């Protein structure tokens, strides 16, 4: 096959040389000048073709990444959460994730993409991209110079879908479906769009790549995705209160196998999430890909190892929960740190999230059903802060070759990270609380106790998962 291509290429180049020679032969006096012009023209054309090929490579990777990130929500996160609930609530849990795949998509096209990525102010985007006006095949150099703006839009959409879906873990088994739909629509506008704009949007307050006032390093969404969702999860868990019977009544996961499949799909999809955030099929994408793998692995060992030491046995659920915690923590750091730093970040996240979920939650007594806060809120915060410690210009010279993180020689970055983390926490707490108050006032957020006992599958959706 390769030989065939060589022969074809050779034939083509001989043919074009022949054409040049023939043209020179017709008007001998102009031969030299015309040959030079023609070579210059050919070079320009070749350069265009090389650029086009590179852009197409980037576009192929970015479309693949977008699909991988969608895979994280459905079936990844849906199964991860679905296995952890009791069997009377599994369909309702799957439906929460899946419905967001549809609802957030429509909302994104109409409104939220513009609010997140329009120019606007330092806090919120403008309205120029409403109804995706002007979002087409041409690149937007403010975001990604080598891919269609439309590709960037759809890649970012997948992030906007999974972020609210993560919150579902906190209110699982007790929230009204109708209330969830309204809550999520408002949350995407009030919390997600401003946070995404501040960190990644043109002119955003925290945008590190474009000289924001407090440049917060967040490669793939530690603050935008995991802190906002995790902290909002804690607020909803506190607002809704505990599930009936918690913690006296046993509520073990109804199918750990489903959770296992979901967690493994999350791990695979996360390569699109993190390596895709390089916005090109570049060496930086490879670096983020590698950091992702190493962070997840170290965290799985951290969580399962901590269990092994405390309980005498490592559990499968612990190992996969640890991997997810590591993926969360490496998310903001993935495009800024090398493999060894990724191992450290993952290990720390695995152990910290384990302690948070098993010890601190039990002591504080709140019912974050599936540990959305313990894994995403805590893991995201750990990751965002450690990004400020480990970020290195050798991996990503984002500050014009100046030192990037603490170890790199720029300790002030840790403070900038703290500002970004604090803003994400504050926005999530205030925004979520206000939205919950509104939704509770209009339709009520919690199902009646008899529906909770019967299960959400029958009472909210009129169907059952296992009709055997």
């Amino acid at each position, binding site marked *: 096959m390769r030989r065939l291509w060589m022969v074809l290429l050779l034939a083509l180049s001989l043919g074009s040389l022949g054409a040049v020679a023939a043209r020179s032969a017709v008007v001998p006096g102009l031969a030299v000048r015309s040959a030079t012009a023609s070579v210059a023209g050919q070079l320009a054309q070749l350069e265009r073709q090389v650029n086009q090929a590179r852009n197409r490579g980037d576009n192929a990777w970015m479309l693949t990444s977008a699909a991988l990130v969608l895979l994280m929500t459905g079936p990844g996160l849906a199964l991860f959460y679905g296995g952890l609930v009791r069997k009377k609530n599994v369909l309702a849990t799957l439906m929460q994730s899946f419905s967001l795949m549809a609802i957030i998509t429509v909302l994104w096209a109409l409104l939220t993409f513009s609010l997140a990525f329009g120019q606007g102010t330092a806090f919120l985007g403008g309205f120029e991209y409403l109804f995706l006006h002007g979002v087409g095949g041409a690149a937007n150099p403010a975001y990604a110079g080598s891919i269609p703006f439309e590709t960037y839009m759809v890649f970012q959409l997948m992030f906007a879908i999974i972020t609210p879906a993560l919150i579902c873990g906190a209110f699982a088994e007790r929230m009204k479906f109708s209330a969830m739909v309204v809550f999520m629509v408002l949350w995407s506008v009030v919390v997600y769009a401003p946070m995404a704009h501040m960190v990644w949007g043109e002119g955003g307050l925290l945008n590190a790549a474009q000289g924001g006032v407090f440049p917060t390093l967040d490669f793939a969404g530690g603050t935008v995705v995991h802190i906002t969702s995790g902290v909002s999860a804690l607020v909803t868990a506190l607002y809704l209160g505990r599930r009936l019977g918690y913690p006296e009544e046993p509520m073990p996961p109804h199918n750990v196998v489903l959770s296992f499949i979901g967690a493994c799909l999350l791990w695979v999809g996360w390569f699109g999430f993190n390596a895709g955030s390089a916005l090109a099929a570049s060496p930086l994408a490879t670096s983020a890909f590698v950091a992702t793998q190493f962070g997840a692995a170290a965290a799985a060992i951290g969580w399962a190892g901590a269990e092994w030491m405390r309980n005498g046995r490592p*559990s499968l*659920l612990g190992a996969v929960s640890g991997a997810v915690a590591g993926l969360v923590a490496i998310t903001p750091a993935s495009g800024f740190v090398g493999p060894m730093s990724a191992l450290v970040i993952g290990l720390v996240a695995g152990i910290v999230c384990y302690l948070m979920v098993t*010890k601190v*939650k*039990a002591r504080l007594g709140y019912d974050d059903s599936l540990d959305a806060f313990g894994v995403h809120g805590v893991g995201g915060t750990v990751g965002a802060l450690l990004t400020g410690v480990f970020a290195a210009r050798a991996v990503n010279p984002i500050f014009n070759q100046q030192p990037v993180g603490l170890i790199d020689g720029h300790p002030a970055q840790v403070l900038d990270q703290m500002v970004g983390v604090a803003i994400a926490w504050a926005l999530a707490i205030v925004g979520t609380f206000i939205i919950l108050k509104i939704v509770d006032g209009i339709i009520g957020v919690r199902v009646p106790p008899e529906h909770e006992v019967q299960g959400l599958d029958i009472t909210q959706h009129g169907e059952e998962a296992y009709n055997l």
Partner: protein
Amino acid sequence: MKKIEAIIQPSRFEAVKGALQEIGVQGMTILEVRGHGRQKGHTEVYRGSEYTVDLLPKIKLEMVVPDRLVEAAVQAILKAAKTGKIGDGKIFVSSIEEAIRIRNEERGEAAL
């Protein structure tokens, strides 16, 4: 006619069934049940939440046999089900007044 009810370890079920068929027990009904006698349960831990599982899975066999087969059936179950550890289960024997085959309305031992 006597009814024999035996609660046994699930892992011994195939051996018990084989031993009963060997001595000529014609039919049986089995149930998957949960319960406990003196055997203690175990704990399961999911993300730090501990659950004590004290009702353990068992198999319950029920069969009605002619009087002449009762002792042989009890011996067969004992031999096949015994591991010598707590949790091996129990056998209950009780009298049966009547048996009727639904298909042809035969009665008594002929219906077994």
